């Protein structure tokens, strides 16, 4: 490509000054950027209201594209389903029969659970969902894993509320805007969730790897009892996440833990549920007679 003709400033003072000023302005941009980075590292929440306002502005367009995205993936899965219909249907029937049995078992366990809780005088109101929201956008170009949902202060959301889909835990509310909120997905490297194995409650922590998988670290060192295919659920220790929410399935066993795949893939998730921040039940009150 031919170079633009008027590159050289020559002896013209005016041209020399304007070249110098444009470079100075460029360096000023670098300095301002460096200052902003330092501020956001020292105080990560410094620009949260600005970000909230920005996502509030683009919310209508984001909602529209979210609809298109879901429709697009629906068409693709319909076409794929057309080719695998026969075998899929047979498998689904078999699984449905198994699931029916499991459902009856679960009902029985629930009934027993209620009876035992009554025996122990454990009454706690079931704090359910705060709002149903839609995942509208995410940070696909950054190594940080944030998503945006279309509910904010208007639906009574507050910071820290866990977000789940029907399949499992998705993340938690990080910044609340007027009508949108920013969600820290569980695959982000800053997200650490206390988990336990669903079958026997082996405790562990699940931290995001940043590439869509989770790193499960056992709390008890020693022989690694985990096996491929184990399902991890939230343990609720420390509060925040309600215990028993399904979260991840182990895909690769390591020496001190495992690598896990997230059960609720955000790419396939359309609507999510925002739950109350879970607080562990207070320790039982000490018996008043013992002190005397």
């Amino acid at each position: 490509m031919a170079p633009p003709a008027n590159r050289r400033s020559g002896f013209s003072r005016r041209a020399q000054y304007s070249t110098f000023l444009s470079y100075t302005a460029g360096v000023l941009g670098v300095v301002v950027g460096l200052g902003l980075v330092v501020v956001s590292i020292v105080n990560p929440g410094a620009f949260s209201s600005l970000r909230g306002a920005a996502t509030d502005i683009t919310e209508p367009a984001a909602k529209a594209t979210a609809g298109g995205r879901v429709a697009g993936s629906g068409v693709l899965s319909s076409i794929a389903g057309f080719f695998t219909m026969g075998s899929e249907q047979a498998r689904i029937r078999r699984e449905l029969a198994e699931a029916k049995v499991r459902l009856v078992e679960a009902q029985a366990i629930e009934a027993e659970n209620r009876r035992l809780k009554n025996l122990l005088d454990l009454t706690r109101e079931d704090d359910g969902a705060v709002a149903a929201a839609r995942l509208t956008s995410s940070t696909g170009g950054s190594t940080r894993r944030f998503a945006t949902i279309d509910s904010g202060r208007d639906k009574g959301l507050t910071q820290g509320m866990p977000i789940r889909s029907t399949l499992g835990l998705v993340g938690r509310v990080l910044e609340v805007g007027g009508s949108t909120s920013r969600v820290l997905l569980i695959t982000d490297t800053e997200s650490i969730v206390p988990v336990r194995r669903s079958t026997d409650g082996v405790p562990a922590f699940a931290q995001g790897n940043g590439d869509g998988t989770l790193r499960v670290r056992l709390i008890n060192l020693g022989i690694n009892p985990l096996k491929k295919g184990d399902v991890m659920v939230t343990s609720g220790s420390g509060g925040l996440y309600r215990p028993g929410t399904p979260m991840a399935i182990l895909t690769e066993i390591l020496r001190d833990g495992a690598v896990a795949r997230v059960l609720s893939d955000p790419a396939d998730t359309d609507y999510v549920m925002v739950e109350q921040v879970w607080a562990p039940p207070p320790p039982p009150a000490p018996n008043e007679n013992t002190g005397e």
Partner: protein
Amino acid sequence: MMGPRRSALPRSRINRVPSPLVAHSLPWLTIMLASVLPGWIVIASAPVLPPLGFLMFVSWRQLRPGLLPIWAGLPLGIVDDLYSGQPFGSAVLLWSLAAIVLEVVEARLPWRNFLTEWLVAIGLIVAYIVFSLVLANVAGASSSLHVIVPQMVISILSFPLVGLIVAKVDRIRLTPFVVLR
């Protein structure tokens, strides 16, 4: 059918100039849209989409050197930072640096072809993605380097496509449709 259309086309171009408003605002608008767009395409659980805003910024500066001022990285970077998920200010910093580098490259290499422009862009893209990771990690994350490899490959391969889009938009930008008095 063909006759009247052929004769109508040149007539509509006589005595017309591009709209100065469109000619000056379209680069800024397309870069801002490209900053917002990747978030809407997919709810990604890994960094798989290219930093479209940055690719668009580099493409515009390479196609029309001097159209965007060197300080354009400041306002455009702020917009990108609002939506990218990076620590605020990282795009302002890196885009401003990239603009200075492009300006220097342009002064040193006045005669460029597609390959040299792509090579320069590859260097900038790789540096941008690595420094973005470094800034995110300094601000609290702990992603490892292998996470960004797919994103780098996708970004490098999609850069010519972004360049094609920028060239098309540039033609729209300079379409004469305002009647000259």
